[in-house]
């Protein structure tokens, strides 16, 4: 499963400072995010402990993507408090630190159509201060190291684009993986690969939050499930001890706030 030299899972996160084991990786209290005047997050409370794989599930428009973007330091925190990796999200310096320490796979892949697969991964890896020697293993790990490496991204399928974006995150070695629909557009082998990457990342000290509509697969992967509805994550009960196979706290569906 694991190949020698694979960057992220074996070596673990490198960006920014390590998180103290006692501190939650994500701590949101009454977090409000307005997008165009609309409360995309309406008083979100959430704790994520180190080593957890938290699945965010809920209907379209519930606020899952906004929650992930808030945790990445990209969406604004207008009310309430929020800390990610012990950095304050309401503070510009804190947000910049958070951004450097997380890996976000959004709906968009953040690739330049005109550049080849390798040129894209190489650019983003260097921009993220990744080690050059991590690039080649990441390309191989994601199955894009063969003839695909020299193909312009504009010529790739949706799944191949997704793999390229994942290779960037693998090079980045984030402390916190934020994956928005990571299985979307991937074939069965690709979805298995995503699950392997997530498990290996957690095994080497990272924490993962993901949203997915592939609930069977994602439920199997997650150590905890949080339902998001009406811009609020709805948790019942404490978080379980981190680690694969730990008990899950499943929430039921809930009313909008």
């Amino acid at each position, binding site marked *: 499963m694991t190949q020698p030299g694979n960057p992220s899972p074996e070596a673990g996160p490198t960006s920014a400072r390590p998180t103290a084991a006692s501190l939650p990786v994500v701590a949101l209290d009454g977090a409000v995010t307005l997008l165009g005047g609309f409360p995309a997050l309406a008083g979100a409370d959430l704790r994520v402990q180190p080593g957890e794989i938290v699945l965010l599930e809920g209907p379209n428009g519930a606020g899952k993507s906004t929650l992930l973007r808030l945790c*990445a*330091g*990209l969406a604004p925190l207008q009310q309430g408090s929020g800390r990610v990796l012990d950095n304050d999200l309401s503070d*510009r310096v804190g947000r*910049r630190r958070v*951004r*450097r320490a*997380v890996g*976000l796979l*959004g*709906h*968009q*892949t*953040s*690739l*330049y*159509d*005109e*550049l080849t697969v390798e*040129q894209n991964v190489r*650019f*983003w890896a*260097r*921009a*993220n*201060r990744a080690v050059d020697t991590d690039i080649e293993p990441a390309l191989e790990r994601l199955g894009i190291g063969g003839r695909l490496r020299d193909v*312009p991204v504009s010529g790739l399928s949706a799944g191949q684009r997704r793999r390229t974006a994942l290779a960037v995150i693998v090079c980045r070695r984030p402390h916190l993986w934020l994956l928005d629909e990571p299985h979307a557009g991937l074939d069965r082998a690709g979805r298995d690969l995503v699950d392997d990457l997530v498990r290996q990342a957690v095994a080497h000290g990272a924490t993962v939050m993901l949203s997915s509509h592939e609930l069977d697969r994602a439920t199997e992967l997650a150590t905890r499930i949080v339902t998001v509805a009406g811009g609020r994550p709805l948790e019942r009960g404490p978080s379980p001890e981190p680690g694969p196979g730990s008990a899950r706290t499943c929430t039921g569906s809930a009313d909008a706030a």
Partner: protein
Amino acid sequence: MLRDAWLIASKDLRVEWSSKVLTGQVLPFGVLVLILFGFGISPDRRVVEAPERAVLEQVAPGLFWMAVLLSALLALGRSFAIESVDGNLDALKLTGLDPAGIFLGKGLAVWLELVALEVVLGAGAFLLYGAPLGHPGLLAVTVAATTTSVAAAGTLYAALASGLRVRDTLVPLLVLPVLAPVLLGATLATEAALFGPAGDGWPWAGFLGAFALLYLGAGILSFGPLLEET
């Protein structure tokens, strides 16, 4: 900062080289503008030995810089259009790259593209309008300072508009009024470089240098907050 700037500039140039937009669209557009200006001012080539030719020579600096400026709008719009698709701007924010480095890198890429454009358009202007070259030193300083002014101010305003849906039409509206004094200074300095006396051109070259430094400084200082808002 400089490392980040070079990373961004080399990526932008690679994107432009692969897309062929500069050679296939921006450059032909500039050449067309140059030719059409020539047609507009001296429509009948049979009378070029007559006073019209002298007029064409006299207005050559202004026509050249107008052609450069209009072509630059395409290059500037393109510089941030490639970041506005597929979430690239968010990904740039997540890198932790120095915002000042991003500004300088974007500006450097535009600067190099404009210099390439100016070499071709300058040769075209020489052939079409037949302007003499009196003071090459003054001309080189004028070209460098004007190009830096256009690249720096243009990059700043293109970034400002990059998060908006109307960015394609907004960039010219923002950039052209700001660059009007640059066009004036560049035209007068170039006139002095071509026809002399050179002493008339140096104050304008100094003005262009000051404008370039002003916008370089403004970009370096303000690009971080600007990036936050886009």
